[in-house]
């Protein structure tokens, strides 16, 4: 890298990268869960990023903001409350009128470009509800702590996504027989040209899955800027690292993509988690890319520390989700895990969506009560009781208690 590159890169950074705060923005104390590093409590605040309701700000540049747990009493997460996660801090505002999606690569016989209008009109448009969850969701609760964005439980959301299937878009590019991966890139970049651009790949089989789409609508609206306007990849069941925002190119690759964000990041030790869909062309002797989400649940209400009168009915609510097998049951404990009762499941929004659940019980004795939830999916996987530690703090699906006070 030379000075000129540094200057060019940094010039771009200055013009583009500072996330403007929404109107009337004021820092407020963030509702953080227990168990995060103490430094996180000192610096995290509740702030409205532009176009967003107040979110829990962990870092400003690049912006990493999580959704408050209270939103997860609903299956659909509002766009304005949807979490924000970036790796690199040069984030251009994309003009849809001038946006082009480049479909090609060495494995494509007939590469072509799509305009935003063509993306919406040249292919069948489909809708799917799917959970978008950061791989590092709950990293801040790792014990011991591990470096990275110290997410609590809110680096996730569920939305109804609309757009063409990736397989239809790829078919028009004439995929050759030797394609192994589909490589995706977005408009965001780094201040320094020496920094690896955020580029990801998915196996061809996942790219051709009928549920993998290019979304230009989210819950019936255009995608918010901070969630990938004008279009992002939707890879239902898999963690959000593959859900490329501000899509600019889709390339058919005939050999495994070897960029930093595939080879040097987003990896889990082999055989540590009960994963069905693996990414075999990227697997090494020791580790493998994170792929599908593990079964998990969240208690959205009551809030940690909430107070109730003795005899009052306590309405426990939350969501459960997994890697696309579907939620079979959620069990709730009102006594710290000693006894469990089945929760009532809400409407089925599809196997990739949040499944709401609820359970009521009478708070008949005074004192602290530890409420826990444990989800089980349709292939028999359940949340774990003790953390499966891994160096990046991924796949934390420990049943985590919410303590309430009955007075």
């Amino acid at each position, binding site marked *: *890298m030379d000075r000129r590159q540094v200057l060019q890169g940094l010039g771009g950074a200055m013009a583009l990268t500072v996330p403007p705060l929404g109107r009337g923005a004021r820092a407020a104390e963030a509702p953080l869960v227990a168990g995060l590093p103490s430094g996180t409590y000192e610096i995290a605040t509740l702030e409205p990023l532009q176009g967003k309701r107040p979110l829990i700000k962990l870092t400003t540049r690049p912006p990493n903001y999580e959704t408050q747990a209270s939103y997860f009493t609903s299956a659909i997460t509002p766009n304005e409350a949807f979490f924000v996660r970036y790796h690199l801090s040069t984030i251009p505002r994309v003009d849809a009128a001038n946006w082009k999606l480049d479909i090609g690569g060495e494995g494509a016989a007939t590469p072509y470009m799509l305009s935003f209008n063509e993306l919406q009109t040249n292919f069948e448009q489909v809708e799917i509800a799917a959970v978008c969850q950061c791989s590092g969701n709950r990293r801040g609760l790792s014990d011991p702590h591990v470096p990275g964005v110290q997410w609590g439980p809110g680096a996730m959301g569920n939305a109804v996504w609309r757009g063409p299937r990736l397989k239809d878009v790829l078919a028009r590019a004439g995929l050759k027989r030797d394609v192994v991966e589909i490589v995706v890139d977005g408009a965001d970049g780094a201040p320094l040209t020496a920094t690896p651009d955020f580029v990801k790949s998915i196996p061809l089989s996942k790219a051709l899955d009928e549920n993998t789409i290019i979304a230009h609508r989210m819950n019936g609206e255009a995608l918010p800027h901070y969630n990938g306007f004008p279009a992002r990849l939707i890879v239902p069941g898999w963690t959000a690292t593959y859900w490329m925002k501000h899509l600019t190119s889709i390339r058919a690759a005939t050999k495994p993509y070897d960029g930093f964000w595939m080879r040097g990041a987003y990896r889990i030790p082999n055989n540590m988690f009960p994963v069905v869909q693996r990414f075999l062309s990227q697997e090494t002797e020791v580790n493998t890319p994170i792929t599908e989400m593990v079964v998990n649940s969240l208690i959205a209400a009551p809030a940690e520390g909430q107070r109730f009168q003795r005899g009052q009915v306590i309405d426990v609510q939350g969501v459960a989700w997994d890697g696309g097998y579907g939620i079979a049951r959620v069990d709730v404990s009102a006594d710290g895990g000693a006894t469990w009762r089945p929760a009532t499941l809400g409407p089925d929004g599809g196997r990739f969506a949040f499944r709401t659940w609820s359970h009521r019980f009478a708070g008949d004795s005074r004192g602290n009560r530890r409420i826990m939830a444990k989800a089980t999916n349709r292939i028999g996987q359940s949340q774990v009781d003790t953390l499966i530690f891994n160096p990046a703090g991924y796949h934390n699906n420990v049943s985590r208690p919410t303590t309430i006070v009955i007075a």
Partner: protein
Amino acid sequence: MRQSCVLAAIFMTVAAGVAAQEKPIPLKDAPGRAMTENLCSGCHSLDYIRINAPFMNRQIWTAEVNKMIQAFGAPIQMNDANAIVDYLTVNYGPPQ
């Protein structure tokens, strides 16, 4: 060394430009603070340091600074990197 100074100056300018728009994130006033602020804030806000405290010991801070240089291309010379690791370990590492 000369190149390091030039780069540091560029970063300082950028950090100042960004800081003007971004809420300042104060770091502890101790030897190495200015260098840490200047060389780290060119690419990311300084809350990255504070949310990751105080569980990172010297070994983990060293790995993190090396990652910024080797994987992300941060233009930081060896002497400066050592000074940054010292500052982070003393001020944002586990209590001694």
